[in-house]
C-alpha cells in the first residue's frame, strides 16, 4: 500500500518546470484521507452507506467520490438524484450475488434431456414459453430507462438494475429457445393489455411506482411459478430453466421488497401513494389484466397452458386447474409475505387489499 505524502515531491516540482501541469496529482494526494471512507462505501465491500449524500449534485457522470472539475457542462440532468427516491437495503449483496450466479442458457441447460412430448403438452409448454419470451424483457427495458435517469452517486442501485437487465435478456432467450428446441414453435402472443395510457409497469415514470409494480407484484407472481417449475417441467432441461430463472427472479423481487421497506421507513409521507400503486397491481394480479400474472383466472392462454402442464395433458386439464388454483393461493400467500416484509401489510388487515386475493389467502389458510 502506498504511503501518504501531502506535499509536492521534488520530482513533481521538476516535472512542472519541464512544462507538465500535475495540479491534478496534488489534488489526488489531498483526496487520499477520504478514500478510506469511499472504500467503506464501495459496492464490492461494504454496506456502510450511512454517510451517502441524500441529494446528488452530480450532473457529469463522475463516479461517486471523484474530484469534480469546475466549469464543465452539467449535461446529464438526472431525474432521480435524491437518495430517498431510489435507495434500498442489501444492494451490494444483491449485486454481488447477481454477478456470481450468472448462467448461460446455451450451455448450462441440459438440452439433451429434452424428449418428444405429446402435442398437447408441447403446445402448452410452447404457449407458456411464448408468454415469457414476450414479457421478460420488459423487465430489462424499463429498468434500463431508469438507470439512465439516475444519478451515478447511487451506483449500488444502478449496478443491481444492470444485472437485472442482463438476467431478463437471458430469460427472454431461454424461453424462446425452449419453444424452438423440441418440435414445437412459438405460439400466440398474449392478448391481455390494460392501462396502455398509464398506470402500468412500463409506463411508470416514477421509480417506486415502477418497482412496486414490477418487482413486488409482477415478478413476484412469476417467481412463485418459477419456484414450482418442478410441477410444470417434463424433463431436466425444463426443470433447470425454471430453477435458474427462479433464482434470478428472487433477487429482483428482493430488490423491490428492500426498496419498499426503505421507502416505508424513510419516506412515510409516500406510504399512501405506494398503497395506491399496490391497489392497481393487485387488480392485475387477481384478474390477469395486463398479462402480468400468467396463472390468473382471466389469463386464458397461459392459465390453460399451465393447467395442461400441471395436470399432465389436455385430457387432465381439470385436474391441472385444481393445482393451478392452489398455485394462485400460493402466489397470494407469498405476496402477503412480501407486504409484511416491506411494512405494507396493514392493507391486509384494514380491508384495502383486493378482496379476491384476501379470499384466496383465507382459503389457503
Amino acid at each position, binding site marked *: 500500500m502506498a504511503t501518504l505524502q501531502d506535499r509536492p515531491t521534488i520530482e513533481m516540482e521538476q516535472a512542472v518546470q519541464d512544462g507538465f501541469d500535475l495540479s491534478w496529482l496534488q489534488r*489526488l494526494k489531498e483526496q487520499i484521507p477520504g478514500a478510506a471512507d469511499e472504500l467503506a462505501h*464501495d459496492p464490492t465491500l461494504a454496506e456502510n452507506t450511512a454517510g451517502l449524500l441524500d441529494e446528488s449534485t452530480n450532473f457529469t457522470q463522475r463516479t461517486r467520490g471523484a474530484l469534480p472539475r469546475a466549469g464543465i457542462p452539467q449535461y*446529464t440532468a438526472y431525474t432521480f438524484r435524491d437518495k430517498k427516491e431510489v435507495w434500498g437495503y442489501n444492494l451490494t449483496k444483491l449485486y454481488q450475488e447477481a454477478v456470481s450466479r450468472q448462467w448461460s442458457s*446455451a450451455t448450462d441447460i441440459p438440452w439433451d434431456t429434452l424428449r418428444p412430448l405429446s*402435442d*398437447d403438452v408441447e403446445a402448452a409448454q410452447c404457449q407458456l414459453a411464448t408468454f415469457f*419470451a414476450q414479457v421478460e*424483457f420488459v423487465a430489462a427495458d424499463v429498468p434500463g430507462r431508469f438507470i439512465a435517469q439516475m444519478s451515478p452517486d447511487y451506483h449500488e442501485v444502478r449496478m443491481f438494475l444492470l444485472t437485472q437487465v442482463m438476467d431478463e435478456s437471458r430469460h427472454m432467450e431461454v424461453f424462446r429457445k425452449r419453444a424452438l428446441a423440441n418440435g414445437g414453435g412459438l405460439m*400466440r*402472443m398474449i392478448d391481455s393489455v390494460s392501462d396502455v395510457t398509464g398506470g402500468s409497469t412500463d409506463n411508470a415514470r416514477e421509480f417506486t411506482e415502477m418497482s412496486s409494480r414490477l418487482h413486488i407484484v409482477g415478478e413476484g407472481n412469476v417467481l412463485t411459478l418459477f419456484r414450482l417449475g418442478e410441477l410444470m417441467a417434463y424433463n431436466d432441461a425444463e426443470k433447470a430453466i425454471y430453477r435458474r430463472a427462479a433464482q434470478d427472479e428472487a433477487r429482483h423481487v428482493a430488490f423491490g421488497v428492500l426498496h419498499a421497506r426503505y421507502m416505508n421507513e424513510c419516506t412515510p409521507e409516500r406510504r399512501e401513494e405506494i398503497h395506491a400503486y399496490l391497489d392497481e397491481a393487485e387488480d392485475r394480479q387477481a384478474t390477469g389484466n395486463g398479462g402480468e400474472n400468467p396463472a390468473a383466472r382471466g389469463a386464458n392462454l397461459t392459465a390453460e397452458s399451465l393447467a395442461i402442464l400441471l395436470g399432465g395433458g389436455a385430457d387432465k386439464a381439470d385436474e391441472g386447474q385444481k393445482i393451478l388454483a392452489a398455485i394462485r393461493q400460493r402466489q397470494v400467500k407469498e405476496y402477503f409475505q412480501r407486504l409484511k416484509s416491506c411494512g405494507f401489510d396493514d392493507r391486509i388487515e384494514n380491508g384495502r387489499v383486493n378482496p379476491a386475493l384476501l379470499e384466496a389467502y383465507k382459503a389457503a389458510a
Partner: protein
Amino acid sequence: MTAQNDASAEHGLNPPVPPVDDSNPTGRYHSSAAERVQQDVSAGDALAPAAESADAESPAEKAAPSERFAWMKDTRQWGVRAPVTAHGLTVDAINIGIYGEIPDESREMTRMPRGSFATPGLPRLDNYSVNRKEELWSENAAWLYEEAIQRRWIAMQDIAWDALPTLLLDFELAWCQLCTELGHHAIAETDTIGQWLHRMNYAYIEPKMFLATEEFDAARHHEVMRHRALCNGGALGVESAGMVSRRMLETRAGWPETSVALYLARGVLTLLLYRFGAHYAANPVDRKIFSLCLQDKARHLAYGQGMLKYSVAVQGADFATSLRRILGSIEKDMAGELKDAVLWEALAIIAGGSVSGMKSGMAAVHKLRGDYVRQYVARLRYVGIGKRDDALHPDLAAALAGG
C-alpha cells in the same frame, strides 16, 4: 403448422394447417424476404427428422382440434427442433425457419415475439423509434451475445486483489486517475445505451440482448475500476472532461448516429486505454484487470462496427455523408479531450514508471494518441463512412502525425 411433433398423431390436438402466407400477420412487418417466407415454412418441414416425417399421419387422418383449447393451433410454424451445437443451444441455432426471418422494418409495437402468432387488434403498448433493421442490426450480434455470456467474469472473485503490490505513491495515483477516467467511460456507456434500449423494436431481439450484455459489462467495468482506484492506498481522481460523453448522451437523431460517438469516437479510446493499462501494468493483478476489460470492450466495438457497416451499406452514400457531417462536432470534442492534461499526464507517469520518467513516458502517450486517431479513421473507413486524413480536425491530424 407445417410439420408434426412425433406425438401429434396420438393426440391430434395440433394437426397441420393448410399453408397460408402469414408472413406479415398484423400487416406491421415489412420484409424484402416476405415472398420467401412460405418457402421457408415448407423448408421448416425438413427440420424434422426423416423418420418423424415418415411416421406422421396425413392431415386427413388428424382429429379436429379441440374447441376448448383452440389456441393450440395458433402457431405459424410447428415442428421446429433447433440443433444443439458444439457451443450449446445458441441464439443463432434458433434462428431457423420463420423464426430466423428478420424483417426490414417492423411497425409491430406490442412486443410480439418474432415469429409468434399475432393477435389482431391489439393497441400499441409502446411507440418504438428504432424500427428498421438497418438502424440497429448487426449480423454478429447473436454470436457476440453468447460470447459475452461465456466469457463473463467476476471482479470480486476473479481478481486477486490481495496480491496487489505496494506502489510508489505518484505511480499509484496515476493508475487511480486512469481508473477514474475509465469508470466514467463505463457510466457514460450505461446511460447512453439505457436511454436507447427501450426504444428498440422487439423484432430485433438479438441486438437488444447484446446491448443488455454491454450494459452488464459496463457495470462490471465501473465496479472494477472504482475498486482498483480505492483499494491500494490511492484515491479516486479528477472526473473526466466528458466532452465525448456529452455527445453520446445528447445525440437524439438515431442509434447509428449515437453509435458513431459511442463506439468509434469514445469506444476506440476506451479500448486503447484498456490495452495501455494491460501493456504497462506493473503487476499481474493490474494486467489481468485491464486484459479482461479489453476483451469485453473489443466485443462492444465488434457490434458497433458491424451495426454501422450494415447501416451505411443499406442506407447508402447519403447516409454516410450525414454521419461524416455529425463527426465534425464530435471530432472537436475528441480534440478537446486530447488536450486535457489530466489523463495524458497520468498515462505518462504510468508509461515512464514515475513522475521523473514522465518525459520518456510521453513518447508512449504520443503513440497512444496517434493510434487513437489512426484506429478511429480506419474504423470509419471500415464501416463505410470514409474519412480522409486531410479532412480531420487539425488537432486530430496533428495527433496522427505524432504531435
